[in-house]
C-alpha cells in the first residue's frame, strides 16, 4: 500500500478503471459533438479518433495516432473516460497520449503498426492500456506486457460481427479447456499458447482472464452487442457502427443517438430478449457494412500484432 500523492502504475488501478466500464459501451468518436451525443446516450467511455476504422479502411494510407488537438477537444467535452489509440509498438505515441492525460490507451491493430516485432512495454506507463486479441495466447502475451484490459479484435470497420464472435468463442473455449487440465499439462499448454506459464496457471485456476475481457470489431446493432455479451464479453466497443452510415458518410446525428441508446440498453439487458426487441424495434437501418467473407487476408486489420 502506498500513500502516494503522485502517479501510480499499480495494476489494480489500471484494471480498476476497466472494472468500472463493465456492462457498458465504449464508442468511437471523431468530434466533440459526437462525444456529447455518445455521453448523452449513455456511453461509459469514448475512443477519440481522427477517423473511425471504416474510414481508415476506405481511405487507406498510413493510420497514425489522432491529432492531440482533436483528442483534447473531446477530453474537454466528455465527463466520461476518454481513450485514444496508438500504433502497435509506438511507445512514443503512447508517451504523448499519456502526457495529454487520456484515461486509457488502445494499442490498436486499426492503426498501421510501428514495430514488426515488439509491442509497447505497458508496465512502464501510468496510464492503463487495452490491447486486441484473437486467441488466448495473444491475450496472455499482451497481459504479460502490461495490458490492463483485453478486447477481442473482430474485424474493425466492417459492421460484420462474424469475427468478433469467432474471437470471443476462441478465447472462451481455450480458457474452458485449461480449467479441466491437470497441473502437469499446463506447461505444454503454455508452450502451445506461446504464453507465460504463470498466466496460463491463473486462467486454469479462475477460468477467466486476470483482466476484464471486452469485445470489439464489427458490432453494429443491439443484437450484435447482446450476442457477444452472451458469449462471455464483459462490455463492448462500438466503432464505426454508431456514427457511420457507410464507410464514407456520417449517419444523421439523431439516428446515431437513437442507435447509441439502443446499444447501451442492449449491453445492460443482453440476456433479456423482451428489452432487446423493444430497443431494436425503434431503429431505422444500421451501417451498410462490409462482409468479411469478401475480404482477402491482406486487407484484414486483425492479423496485425501477434
Amino acid at each position, binding site marked *: *500500500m*502506498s*500513500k*502516494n*500523492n503522485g*502517479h*501510480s502504475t*499499480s495494476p*489494480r*488501478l489500471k484494471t*480498476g*478503471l476497466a*472494472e*468500472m*466500464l*463493465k*456492462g*457498458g459501451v465504449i464508442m468511437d468518436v471523431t468530434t466533440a459533438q459526437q462525444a456529447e451525443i455518445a*455521453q*448523452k*446516450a*449513455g*456511453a*461509459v*467511455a469514448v475512443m477519440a479518433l481522427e477517423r473511425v476504422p471504416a474510414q481508415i479502411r476506405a481511405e487507406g494510407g498510413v493510420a497514425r495516432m489522432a491529432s492531440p488537438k482533436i483528442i483534447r477537444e473531446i477530453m474537454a467535452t466528455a*465527463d*466520461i*473516460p476518454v481513450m485514444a489509440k496508438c500504433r502497435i509498438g509506438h511507445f512514443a505515441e503512447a508517451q504523448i497520449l*499519456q502526457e495529454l*492525460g*487520456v*484515461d*486509457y490507451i488502445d494499442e490498436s491493430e486499426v492503426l498501421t503498426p510501428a514495430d514488426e516485432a515488439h509491442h509497447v512495454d505497458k508496465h512502464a506507463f*501510468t*496510464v*492503463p492500456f487495452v490491447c486486441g486479441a484473437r486467441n488466448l495466447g495473444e491475450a496472455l502475451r499482451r497481459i504479460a506486457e502490461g495490458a490492463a484490459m483485453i478486447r477481442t479484435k473482430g474485424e474493425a470497420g466492417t459492421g460484420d460481427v462474424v469475427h468478433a464472435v469467432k474471437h470471443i468463442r476462441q478465447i472462451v473455449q481455450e480458457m474452458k479447456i485449461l480449467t479441466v487440465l491437470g497441473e502437469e499439462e499446463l506447461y505444454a499448454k503454455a508452450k502451445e499458447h506461446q504464453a507465460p506459464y504463470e498466466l496460463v496457471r491463473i486462467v486454469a485456476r479462475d477460468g477467466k482472464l486476470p483482466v476484464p475481457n471486452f469485445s470489439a470489431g464489427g458490432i453494429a446493432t443491439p443484437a450484435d452487442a447482446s450476442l457477444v455479451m452472451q458469449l462471455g464479453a464483459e462490455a463492448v466497443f462500438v466503432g464505426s457502427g454508431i456514427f457511420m452510415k457507410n464507410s464514407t458518410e456520417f449517419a444523421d446525428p439523431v439516428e446515431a443517438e437513437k442507435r447509441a*441508446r439502443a446499444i*447501451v*440498453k442492449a*449491453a*445492460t*439487458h443482453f440476456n*433479456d430478449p423482451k428489452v432487446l426487441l423493444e430497443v431494436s424495434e425503434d431503429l431505422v437501418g444500421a451501417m451498410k457494412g462490409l462482409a468479411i467473407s469478401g475480404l482477402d487476408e491482406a486487407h484484414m486489420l486483425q492479423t496485425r500484432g501477434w
Partner: protein
Amino acid sequence: MKIGVLALQGDFDAHRKRLEELGAEVVLVKKPEQLDDIAGLVIPGGESSTFLNLLGKEGFAKLKGFVRMKPTFGTCAGAILLANEVENPKQVGLGALDITIRRNAYGRQVDSSIREGQFLHDPIEMVFIRAPKIERLGKDVEVVATEGRDPVMVRKGNTLAATFHPELSDDSRIHQYFLDLVTNGKH
C-alpha cells in the same frame, strides 16, 4: 436476507463477490420491480451518467423511493447518485444524502491512487479511481471514514456513501459494516 446490487453497469460483480463471501444472498438488480424483494442495496462504481440513462424516469423514481426506506450503500458513482447536489457537471441525484459531491475531483485516470485512510479511526486501504470528492456535508451527515482531511465515507441513517472502492480491496470491514446496518438498522 437478500441484498441487491444495482447491475445496470459498472463493477457490480466485485460487490457481489464480496457480499457473498460475507454470507449474504445477492440479487443483481436490473429491473425496478426487483427492488421490492431486497432488504438493502449496493450501488456500485461505474459511470453515474450511464446509470441515470439506464434507470430512465420510472427506474429513477422507484429507486428514489427505495433509498428513503431501505439501507443503501453507494461507492464512487453510487455515492454520486445518492447525493442531493452534484457538480462538474451538474447532474440530478437521488437526494438520499444532503451532500455536495464533485465528479472527477482528483483529475483523470493518471491521478487515480491507492491511499491509506481511516475507517472508524482504524487504518484502511482506499482505492480511488477517477474519484469524486465530498465538498459539503449537510446537517446530520456523519463522517465514517477520512483520507487526509477529506471525508471519503459518510452516513446518514441507513444511507452510506464512499468515494473510494472497498470492493477492490481485500479488506471486508466496510461491506461487513453495511451488512450490519441492514441487519441491525444501526451501529
